[in-house]
């Protein structure tokens, strides 16, 4: 009787094998990313425009962060917006094109002088991102009841494509210079749209759906969330437009401030959601998430401060910012959410048909929570040590920090394997 119910999860979720591919690739990328940090700690110093740093940044932003966002979006968009994914085949094709693009781009940055062109991986990545955008937008147009998460996700897709096109132009420029403004100025635009428009916007949008569900939050309004998305979008559009012209410091500060205010409004909004929680005891997923959101406030302040001085003149400051954003905010948040989502996905795939017939595990029993706690504290320690080491240029301390982060990534991978095998 109930098995025939047209429920949200069963009717709209894509097949496990599709989403699982993205999640497995994410876990592999995360370990590789941390290994690359350890192996190249001597190269991680000075200006950010260096082959090894660009290679590591792209395995982080594409192989790890974007990969998991793709996988999570295929799972979440149908559930959150109550629509069926437009095409499962496109999601499958996209995975292989995107993975090939990531591997080739990371390889090419690593071996800057190799014969491979920058444009080929960039084209592959653009195709994959275009397929993703078409798939999600074609799913979204069928939505009957729109919500704030949908607005954030739609905005983030626009910024993903902007980032991708900017990346393509930069890659062509590396092969054959043609961009009129400086390459580094254009790179800044690429980074701003990627970090704020794509990654942060997705996180913000999804957080309004997932966090209240995990912490059982009730009786709050999302008015600030609406203003946040408007201000951040206007700010990003302004910064993208202004950056093409010389002597636009005032406008740059104005639009940058809009982004900052938008991020502050988001942080106030999510604090309100947390304050209204019923589930007071935080589990490991929530601990990661909470720390990540605190770190987001640090990155917001850093973003804002960058409007007022030439941060590239401060040794290692952009690297410190990159580590705080990628390892502190994005990785901590993603790992926290993966400790919630991956057990659910595997549980739903393996056990949902067995409920009521045989004993099924609780989600938190599917991984080793003590190990996850160790990972949590190691990541915080590794992050703090790495930031101190970069700030004061102490190489041996940087190796220590990266090694701790690498061990923590192994613990994470072991825990994820345990979930998939449970």
């Amino acid at each position, binding site marked *: 009787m109930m098995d025939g119910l047209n*429920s949200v999860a*069963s009717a709209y979720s894509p097949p496990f094998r599709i989403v699982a591919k993205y999640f497995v690739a994410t876990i592999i990328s995360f370990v590789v990313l941390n290994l690359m940090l350890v192996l190249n700690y001597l190269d991680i110093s000075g200006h950010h425009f260096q082959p090894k740093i660009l290679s590591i940044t792209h395995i982080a932003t594409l192989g790890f962060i974007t990969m998991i966002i793709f996988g999570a979006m295929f799972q979440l968009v149908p559930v959150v917006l109550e629509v069926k994914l437009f095409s499962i085949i496109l999601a499958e094709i996209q995975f292989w094109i995107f993975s090939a693009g990531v591997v080739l781009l990371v390889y090419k940055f690593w071996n800057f002088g190799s014969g491979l062109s920058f444009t080929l991986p960039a084209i592959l990545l653009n195709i994959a991102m275009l397929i993703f955008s078409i798939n999600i937008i074609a799913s979204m147009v069928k939505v009957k009841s729109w919500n704030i998460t949908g607005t954030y996700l739609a905005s983030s897709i626009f910024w993903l494509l902007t980032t991708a096109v900017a990346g393509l132009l930069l890659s062509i420029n590396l092969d054959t210079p043609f961009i009129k403004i400086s390459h580094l100025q254009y790179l800044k635009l690429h980074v701003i749209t990627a970090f704020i428009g794509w990654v942060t916007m997705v996180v913000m949008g999804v957080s309004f*759906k997932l966090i209240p569900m995990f912490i059982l939050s009730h009786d709050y309004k999302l008015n600030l969330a609406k203003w946040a998305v408007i201000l951040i979008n206007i700010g990003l559009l302004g910064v993208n437009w202004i950056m093409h012209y010389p002597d636009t410091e005032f406008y740059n500060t104005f639009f940058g401030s809009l982004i900052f205010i938008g991020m502050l409004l988001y942080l106030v909004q999510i604090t309100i959601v947390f304050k209204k929680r019923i589930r007071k*005891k935080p589990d490991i997923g929530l601990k990661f998430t909470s720390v990540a959101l605190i770190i987001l406030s640090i990155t917001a302040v850093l973003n804002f401060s960058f409007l007022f001085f030439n941060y590239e003149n401060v040794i290692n400051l952009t690297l410190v910012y990159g580590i705080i954003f990628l390892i502190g905010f994005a990785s901590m948040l993603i790992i926290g959410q993966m400790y919630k989502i991956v057990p*659910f996905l595997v*549980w*739903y795939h393996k056990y949902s048909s067995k409920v*009521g017939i045989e004993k099924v595990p*609780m989600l938190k029993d599917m991984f080793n929570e003590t190990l996850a706690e160790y990972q949590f504290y190691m990541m915080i320690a590794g992050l703090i040590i790495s930031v101190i080491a970069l700030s004061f240029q102490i190489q041996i301390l940087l190796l220590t920090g990266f090694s701790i982060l690498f061990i923590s990534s192994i613990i994470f991978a072991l825990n994820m394997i345990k979930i998939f095998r449970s």
Partner: protein
Amino acid sequence: MTGTITKEKITDILRTVIDPEIGINIVDLGLVYDINIIENQVDVTMTLTTPGCPMHNSITTWAQRVIEMTIPDVKVNVKLVWEPRWTPDKMSEDAKLQLGM
């Protein structure tokens, strides 16, 4: 059969249905709104903590199956409703304690 099925019995059976994410049974969470028994037909009206919860059909299927498995020849219908919306005050004291309230 009718004489042996009581609301209390069904409630006790439903206590074995545990939200896999929260780790608390659906009765103590206050998710079961109504149990109606007419002869060998059991109608359960329940909700979930969040609309659009991805555990949706797993929990309702679990509730239906566990009653059917425990009481032979019973017909079970589990109806999921979103009104009235679930609120924390529907939880038992035990559940509140477990959540750290």
